[in-house]
């Protein structure tokens, strides 16, 4: 199928959902320690569970062939930690800054520019040496050379293990949080989490049909777009480049309908800050082999050990930086008077 149509289609769908549901993992992780607000993290966990169940069924039915990312423990730890720090500085995760372009936020545009440039310099520029030596020197594979996943480490069939995990997590979640479990009207965490998971399920076979056997991603799409815009490479727009463009378009449509679109430019200092944050995210994502979408939304449900390690590292980096940038200043502001 034509990557232009399927990439744009999935992108517009996911972008629309992200804007309406405010889907941002940076906010999700940060709100836990800063505001004690768990709404967005519930959206993220639900999206992962829906993706996990969907991948399990599609893999069992032979609709998809899993393609878990490799475990490069050094690159996953360091790259994703830097990515986590970068997203707090940039004011959004890779998907958050992408959909906020569609809302007219200039700070998100400079962040994405940083992400694309940082990613490009790491994938093909002078930073490539650091990233690739970290990756090759810390790579661990299974005995047969395949990438490590929870399924092959434990020796259990992927689809079986995935469904067991879904059931266990749902039961635990229900027990600890059942009073907040009622379905919410409109675009609460339940609707958004379910639809993001659905987007992830749709993306896998459609992207594979276009020659890229992986679900959703963001960073590679922006790096590819920059390459094309600057005419650095002769390659045509890939599926993932159409996907990120689609996300911006979908979010723009959603923002227009909700009357939330407005061109908003913060102070120059903030634009520089989000650009620098984006650069760190780009370096971190390419070093670790994925951003919060590639590793967390798409990689964790494939049970890749590299993605699980990257996810933990992103969260720890985000918490450290949130503590320095927000928790400490707020404590200071409250104590003075």
């Amino acid at each position, binding site marked *: 199928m034509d990557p232009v149509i399927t990439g744009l289609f999935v992108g517009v769908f996911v972008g629309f959902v992200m804007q309406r549901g*405010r889907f941002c993992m940076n*906010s999700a992780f940060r709100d836990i320690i800063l*505001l004690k607000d768990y709404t967005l993290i519930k959206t993220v966990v639900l999206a992962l569970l829906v993706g996990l169940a969907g991948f399990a069924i599609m893999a069992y039915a032979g609709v998809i062939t899993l393609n878990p990312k490799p475990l490069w423990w050094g690159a996953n730890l360091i790259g994703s930690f830097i990515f986590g720090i970068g997203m707090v500085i940039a*004011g959004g995760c890779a998907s958050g800054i992408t959909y906020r372009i569609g809302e007219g*936020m200039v700070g998100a545009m400079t962040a994405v520019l940083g992400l694309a440039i940082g990613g490009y310099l790491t994938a093909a520029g002078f930073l490539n040496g650091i990233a690739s030596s970290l990756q090759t020197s810390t790579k661990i594979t299974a005995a047969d050379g395949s990438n490590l996943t929870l399924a092959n480490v434990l020796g259990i069939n992927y689809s079986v293990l995935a469904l067991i995990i879904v059931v266990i997590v749902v039961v635990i979640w229900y027990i600890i949080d059942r009073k907040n479990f009622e379905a919410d009207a409109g675009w609460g965490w339940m609707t958004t989490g379910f639809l993001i998971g659905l987007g992830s399920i749709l993306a896998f076979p459609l992207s594979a049909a276009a020659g890229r056997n992986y679900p959703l991603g963001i960073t590679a799409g922006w790096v590819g777009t920059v390459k094309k815009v600057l005419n650095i490479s002769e390659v045509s727009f890939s599926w993932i480049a159409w996907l990120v463009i689609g996300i911006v378009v979908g979010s723009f449509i959603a923002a227009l309908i909700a009357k939330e*679109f*407005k061109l908003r430019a*913060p102070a120059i200092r903030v634009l520089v800050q989000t650009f620098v944050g984006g650069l760190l995210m780009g370096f971190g994502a390419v070093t670790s082999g994925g951003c919060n979408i590639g590793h967390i939304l798409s990689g964790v449900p494939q049970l890749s050990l590299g993605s699980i390690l990257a996810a933990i590292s992103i969260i720890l980096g985000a918490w450290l930086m949130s503590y320095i940038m927000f928790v400490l200043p707020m404590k200071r502001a*409250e104590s003075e*008077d």
Partner: protein
Amino acid sequence: MSDEIIPTKTIDECGKICPYPDMDTMTALKKMGKGEVLEVLLDYPLSVERIPRNMKKQGHKVLKVERLEGPNHRILIEAYGLKD
């Protein structure tokens, strides 16, 4: 409007994004006495939804969430009096 509430204090968070509107609102309310009213002006959609939810949890009373133009909103919150 006859039931117009006169805010004790106003903070303008327009143009600011996550998490500054939330943090500034939280900090301002902690320093206000019981019954004083804080007016928050903001245009960041996520915080428009999140501030009322979280301020209620902290015991403050959300009096009004009013849509002005486009994404611009005005939120009125009565302080619980954490200072006292």
